[in-house]
C-alpha cells in the first residue's frame, strides 16, 4: 500500500492527460506533423470538452428516458411510448421544447447570479466528468487524484444550487438551498470516508489504476471481495451518494410536496434543464465511482477473456520507436468500456428503483442519519479496513 502522502506529492502537479500524450503522439504521427503542436493541443482540448459535454447530454437524455420508463413500469404504466420506438426520442423532444421556452427571470431576482447558477452547476459537473475513464486506454484526463477531483468538483455544484436558491429571491428556493447546503455538508463526510476504504485497499486515487488492480482472479478480483469491510462501506457510500445527488429518499432540496420545487422553483426552460442534467450526470458519476472502486471497474470475466484473446495495450511501440495504435486491442477496450457503463447504469437503475419505491425522509432525520449513524459507521469501516490491510501486510509481507 503506497503511503497516501507520497501519492499526494506525486500528483501535486496534476498531470492532465499524462496518458493522452500517447494519443497525441499517435495523432502527431498520423497527421505527419503538418500542424504545429500547440494547434494539436488546442484542438484536442476543445474536442475533449465538446465530447464531455456531448457525453453528459447523452447520458442525461438516456437517463431521463430510462427513469421515465422505469417509473412507468414500476407504476403499472408504459412511460413514454409515442415519440419513436418505446419513446426513445422523448428526451430529444423534451429538449427541443425546453429550448423553445421563454427565458424567464423573475423581476426581483438577482439577474447575474440567477443566470450564473445553472452554468456553474453544469460546468462543475462537466469538469468532474473529465475523470471518467471511457476504457482502459481511452480517457479524457488520467488524473492521479481522480476520486478526490470528482468529489471536489461534484460538491462544487452545491455552490451553484445555493446561488440559485438565493438569487431567485423566493422563500421556497431559499429553503431548498439551505437544505441542500446542510445535507451536502452532512453527507460529504461519510461519502469521502466510505470511499477511503477502497482507496486504502487499492493504494491509489486514480480511477484507471484502481480498475486495473482488480483484474486478477479472472476479472473477478473486485475490491468488494478483497476486504470484509468493503460491503458495509459500499452500502454507506451508496446511501451517502443518494443524499449527495439529491435523489429520493433524500430529495429534500427539491422536495416537491414540501417546497414546490425547492431551489429550482423559479427556473424554467433550458436553465432548468441544466439542473436536471446535473442531477443525472451526478448520478452517473457517483455510480461510476461505485463501479470503479467497489464493483471491479472495467473488470469482469468477459473483459478478462477479451484481454487474454485480443491483447490489452492500445498503444504499442512501433518499429521506429514511435507510438502506434494497436487496432487488435480495440475489442478488449470496447468490452471493458461497456462493462463499466453497464455497472454504472446498474447503479443508476438502483437509484431509480429506490426513488419510485420509498417515501421521503424528514429534514431532521436526514441530519440525524448523516451525523449520528453514517459518519461513525464509515469511520469504523475505514479503521477496520486499515487494520485488516495492515495485518495482511504484516502477515503476508
Amino acid at each position: 500500500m503506497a503511503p497516501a502522502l507520497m501519492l499526494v506529492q506525486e500528483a501535486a502537479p496534476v498531470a492532465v492527460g499524462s496518458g493522452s500524450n500517447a494519443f497525441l503522439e499517435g495523432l502527431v504521427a498520423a497527421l505527419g506533423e503538418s500542424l504545429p503542436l500547440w494547434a494539436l493541443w488546442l484542438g484536442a482540448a476543445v474536442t475533449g470538452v465538446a465530447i464531455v459535454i456531448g457525453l453528459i447530454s447523452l447520458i442525461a437524455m438516456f437517463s431521463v428516458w430510462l427513469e421515465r420508463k422505469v417509473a412507468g413500469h414500476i407504476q403499472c404504466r408504459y412511460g413514454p411510448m409515442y415519440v419513436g420506438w418505446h419513446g426513445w426520442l422523448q428526451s430529444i423532444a423534451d429538449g427541443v421544447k425546453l429550448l423553445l421556452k421563454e427565458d424567464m427571470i423573475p423581476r426581483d431576482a438577482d439577474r447575474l447570479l440567477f443566470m450564473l447558477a445553472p452554468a456553474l452547476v453544469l460546468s462543475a459537473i462537466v469538469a468532474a466528468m473529465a475523470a471518467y475513464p471511457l476504457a482502459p486506454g481511452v480517457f479524457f484526463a488520467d488524473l492521479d487524484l481522480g476520486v478526490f477531483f470528482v468529489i471536489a468538483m461534484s460538491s462544487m455544484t452545491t455552490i451553484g444550487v445555493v446561488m440559485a436558491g438565493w438569487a431567485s429571491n423566493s422563500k421556497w428556493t431559499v429553503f431548498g438551498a439551505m437544505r441542500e447546503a446542510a445535507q451536502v455538508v452532512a453527507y460529504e463526510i461519510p461519502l469521502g470516508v466510505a470511499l477511503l476504504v477502497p482507496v486504502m485497499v487499492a493504494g491509489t486515487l486514480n480511477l484507471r489504476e484502481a480498475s486495473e488492480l482488480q483484474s486478477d482472479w479472472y476479472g473477478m478480483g473486485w475490491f468488494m471481495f478483497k476486504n470484509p469491510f468493503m460491503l458495509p462501506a459500499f452500502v454507506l457510500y451508496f446511501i451517502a451518494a443518494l443524499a449527495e445527488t439529491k435523489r429520493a429518499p433524500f430529495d429534500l432540496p427539491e422536495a416537491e410536496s414540501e417546497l414546490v420545487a425547492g431551489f429550482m422553483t423559479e427556473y424554467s426552460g433550458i436553465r432548468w434543464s441544466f439542473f436536471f442534467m446535473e442531477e443525472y450526470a451526478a448520478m452517473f458519476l457517483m455510480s461510476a465511482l461505485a463501479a470503479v472502486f467497489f464493483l471491479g471497474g472495467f473488470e469482469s470475466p468477459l473483459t478478462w477473456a477479451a484481454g487474454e484473446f485480443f491483447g490489452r495495450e492500445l498503444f504499442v511501440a512501433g518499429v521506429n520507436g514511435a507510438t502506434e495504435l494497436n487496432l487488435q486491442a480495440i475489442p478488449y477496450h470496447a468490452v471493458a468500456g461497456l462493462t463499466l457503463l453497464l455497472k454504472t447504469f446498474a447503479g443508476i437503475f438502483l437509484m431509480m428503483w429506490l426513488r419510485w419505491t420509498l417515501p421521503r425522509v424528514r429534514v431532521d432525520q436526514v441530519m440525524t442519519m448523516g451525523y449520528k449513524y453514517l459518519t461513525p459507521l464509515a469511520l469504523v469501516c475505514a479503521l477496520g479496513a486499515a487494520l485488516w490491510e495492515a495485518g495482511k501486510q504484516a502477515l503476508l509481507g
Partner: protein
Amino acid sequence: MANEVTKTMPPNTRLLRTDASEVTVDIRTPDLEINFGPQHPATHGVMRVLMRTDGELVTGAQPHLGYLHRCAEKIGENVEWLQYLPYTDRYDYLASMNNNLGYSLAVEALLGVEIPRRATLIRIICAELNRIGSHLVAFGTYGLDIGAFTPFLYCFREREWMMSLFEKICGARLTYSYIRIGGVFNDAPPGWFEEVARFCDVFERKWPEYVDLLLVNQIYVKRTANVGVISREMALDFGLSGTMLRGSGIDWDLRRDMPYMCYGEIWRDGAYKIPLAKGEMGALGDCWDRSWVRVMEMMESIRIVRWCLDHMVDGPVIGELPKSLKVPAGEAYVGIENPRGELGHYIVSDGGKVAVRTRVRGPSFSNLAVLEDILPGSLVGDAVAIIGSTDIVVGETDR
C-alpha cells in the same frame, strides 16, 4: 455589563441569562412568513395556509379559505329540490355519491316517501364503493405528500375500476347525480352486480399491497408516527368527525350510532366493524393512526358491499314521486357518514318547490380548523404530512 449589551443589541434580541456574569445573547432573526398555497402541490386544492417559520420550524399557522367558494348553499335556496342535486356533487368531488345520498335523505325525511329496498341496497353499494375510491385518493395523495409516488398510482389503478363501475351505472365518472330523491336514477345494467363482486375480490387481493408498500414502510412510519397528534379531548372540542375522530380513538360512526338506510341491519348482522385507532406506532391520534383508519375502512366497505350483493332483491329503484316536487313544510337535519366525516344537510321547506334554507355541514371544514392548533411546533415537512392527514377537500370547506 448587561446594560451595555442591552444598549447595543438590535431590537429583536432577547437576554437569556442576566444573572450570570457572562451574558448569553440569543440573536434571532424575525420569523419568516410564508404562504403555503394557494398554489402549492400539497394543499389538495386551492387552500392557503399562512405559516410563520423559524428556519424549518413552523411557529404559527393560519388556514385561509374561500378560494373555491361557489355559494352552493345559496343556490340551494334558489333552485328546485331536484335541480339542486347536481350541486351537491361538487362539494366533496371525491365522494359525490355520498353527497347525493345526504341531500336525498334530508329531503326524503320531509317527504316521508318510501324507498324501495332495491334502491336502498344500490345506494349503499354506491356509497361504499365511493368511500373506497375516496379513501384511495386520500391514502395515495398522502403517500405523495410524504414523497412516495408509486403507491399513488397503485391506488388510482383500483379507483379507475371503481369509476368505470359508476360510469356503467350512471354514465358519469366524477359527478354522478345518481342517487336521487326517492331512490336512484335507474337500475343497474345487466352484469353490473357481478362486476362489483369481481371488483371486491380483486380489491381484497390488491389491498395488502398498500399496507406493505406504504403503511408499514419504515420511512413512512417514521414520518407520520407521533406527528400531528390530536388528543381525544381536542378531537371532541374541534368537532372533528369521521376518520379524524376515529383516528384519535373515539368510537363514533354515524352508520352504526345514528343508523340510516339499512346500515343498522348490516351492523346487527355483524358484517362490518368500525376500525378504531389504537396508537400502535406512536401516540394515539397521530398521522399514522389516521391513515391506518382509512386503509382499514376500505376493507370494511368491501364487506358492506358484499352484504348488499348477497341480500339484493328485485323491484323498483325509485319511489312514487310527482313530477313537480313539492316538499311539505318543516325542517330536517340528516347527517351521514361521508368518507371525511359527518356530512349534514339541514333544510327548511315552506311547502313549496324551493327550499327556504339549505345548510350544509361539511366535514372538511371542521377538520381543517384543527390545523391552527397542531401545526405550530412541527417542521415544514411535518406540516405537509399533517395537512395531508386531515384529508380535506377544498371544494367542501368552501362549498
